[in-house]
């Protein structure tokens, strides 16, 4: 074991990529059908035990839509509690009946993050590509009212809904929710494929940045608003995952272990599978987790940059997706020699005549 490498703190367990929604901004990989060989519950329970032994303190059950495996999910939440892990459920809420909520809370679920696509049911259904918002709003209200579960309302902001960020804030206030995540869509997976229609304009983002800052001030102590910035419009990149292989592990539905949920797109790396190795081996010894850990892998301008320990060079997936090499400076950085690639996407967004490609297995690009 490498003594200098700290243990991970957080595991994102993507238990299925199946979903009844078809959001164009989804960050899941494009080759959804490659993940049909989902890990069985007993395999997940083993991984949860390994995570706790490795020092992980938080687990996030996500997907796809994790409640499509409701019975399995309840068993996994119970195992997380037995091992002392804090459990988060990341759901879009369509299937969140009171009976399921009861079972999850009884099993030890600590927190549920429930997403909506809009404060307006009609607009939300259009964005989700499914008639689901009546059920989602109902689930959100029931979860928020019960008082024995922490609830976060999540809304991914993009070109089609960002102008109603105020409506989302009002929804959270109306329901007495204590935590709101407003996340500008990050350009991975389906969002990257649909970037011409998903990416909000510079003006939209600037307006929303200011609006959210005012709401954070106004609601301090009542509603904690977590705002995820639109990195394409910032001068410096996000500290993606707080550094590669530093705190976070993701396990995809088929057992593939990833340093971040979008990393499977980096085709130059070979990712190991928890079906063939333990989390501990993968964290400390796999080539993929070591590849961009620390700062030694960096190229210029990161290598000599005073911000290299602040933002860790930004996002490896973005460097690979846009510039073709995961070891380059994130092209979202204003110091990157590839910043023009991001500017071109910004200039093109919204003037394209393309329509979004719905996120579903039928729309997978050919392999």
């Amino acid at each position, binding site marked *: 074991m490498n003594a200098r490498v700290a243990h991970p703190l957080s595991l994102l367990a993507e238990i299925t990529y199946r979903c009844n929604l078809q959001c164009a901004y989804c960050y899941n990989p494009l080759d959804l059908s490659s993940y049909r060989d989902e890990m069985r519950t007993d395999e997940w329970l083993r991984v949860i035990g390994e995570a706790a032994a490795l020092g992980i303190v*938080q687990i996030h059950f996500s997907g796809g839509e994790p409640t499509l495996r409701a019975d399995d999910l309840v068993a996994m939440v119970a195992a997380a509690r037995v091992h002392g892990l804090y459990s988060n459920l990341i759901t879009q809420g369509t299937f969140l009946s009171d009976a399921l909520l009861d079972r999850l809370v009884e099993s030890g679920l600590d*927190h549920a993050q429930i997403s909506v696509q809009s404060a307006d049911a009609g607009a939300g259904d259009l964005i989700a590509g499914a008639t689901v918002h009546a059920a989602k709003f109902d689930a959100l209200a029931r979860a928020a009212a019960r008082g024995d579960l922490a609830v976060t309302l999540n809304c991914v902001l993009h070109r089609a809904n960002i102008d109603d960020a105020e409506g989302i804030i009002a929804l959270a206030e109306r329901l007495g929710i204590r935590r709101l995540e407003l996340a500008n869509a990050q350009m991975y997976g389906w969002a990257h494929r649909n970037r011409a229609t998903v990416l909000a304009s510079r003006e939209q983002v600037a307006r929303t940045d200011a609006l959210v800052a005012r709401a954070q001030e106004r609601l301090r102590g009542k509603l904690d608003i977590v705002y995820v910035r639109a990195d394409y419009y910032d001068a410096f990149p996000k500290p993606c995952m707080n550094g590669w292989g530093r705190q976070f592990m993701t396990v995809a539905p088929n057992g593939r272990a990833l340093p971040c949920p979008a990393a499977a797109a980096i085709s130059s790396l070979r990712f190991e599978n928890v079906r063939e190795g333990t989390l501990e081996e993968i964290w400390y010894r796999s080539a993929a987790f070591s590849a961009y850990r620390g700062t030694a892998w960096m190229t210029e301008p990161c290598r000599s940059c005073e911000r290299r320990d602040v933002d860790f060079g930004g996002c490896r997936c973005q460097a690979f997706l846009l510039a073709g090499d995961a070891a380059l400076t994130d092209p979202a950085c204003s110091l990157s020699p590839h910043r023009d690639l991001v500017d071109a996407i910004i200039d093109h967004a919204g003037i394209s005549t393309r329509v979004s490609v719905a996120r579903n297995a039928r729309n997978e690009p050919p392999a």
Partner: protein
Amino acid sequence: MKPIDPSSVPRLLPGVRLRTLAGGETMLLVPEGAVKLSATSAAVVESIDGKRDIAGIVARMNERFDAAGADLAADVSSLLEEFAQRVWIGFDS
């Protein structure tokens, strides 16, 4: 937000709990996050039981820590203020 009164009774809100790790380190686990706590901060959070008021927490801290010269009351207030801003604790008075 109204200022914190010594007679207010803080309580941890749902989804907020302490966890002591194998190495003895204490963390506050919150929705989608974990905060490392110093020994004194951990003691403040341990004192939050939904019954003890802030004055009582300060008194308990004074018993537990040799705080000669330190302004424990101010430290407790500022920690609770910070947690209240993140909506991790609420107050009954």
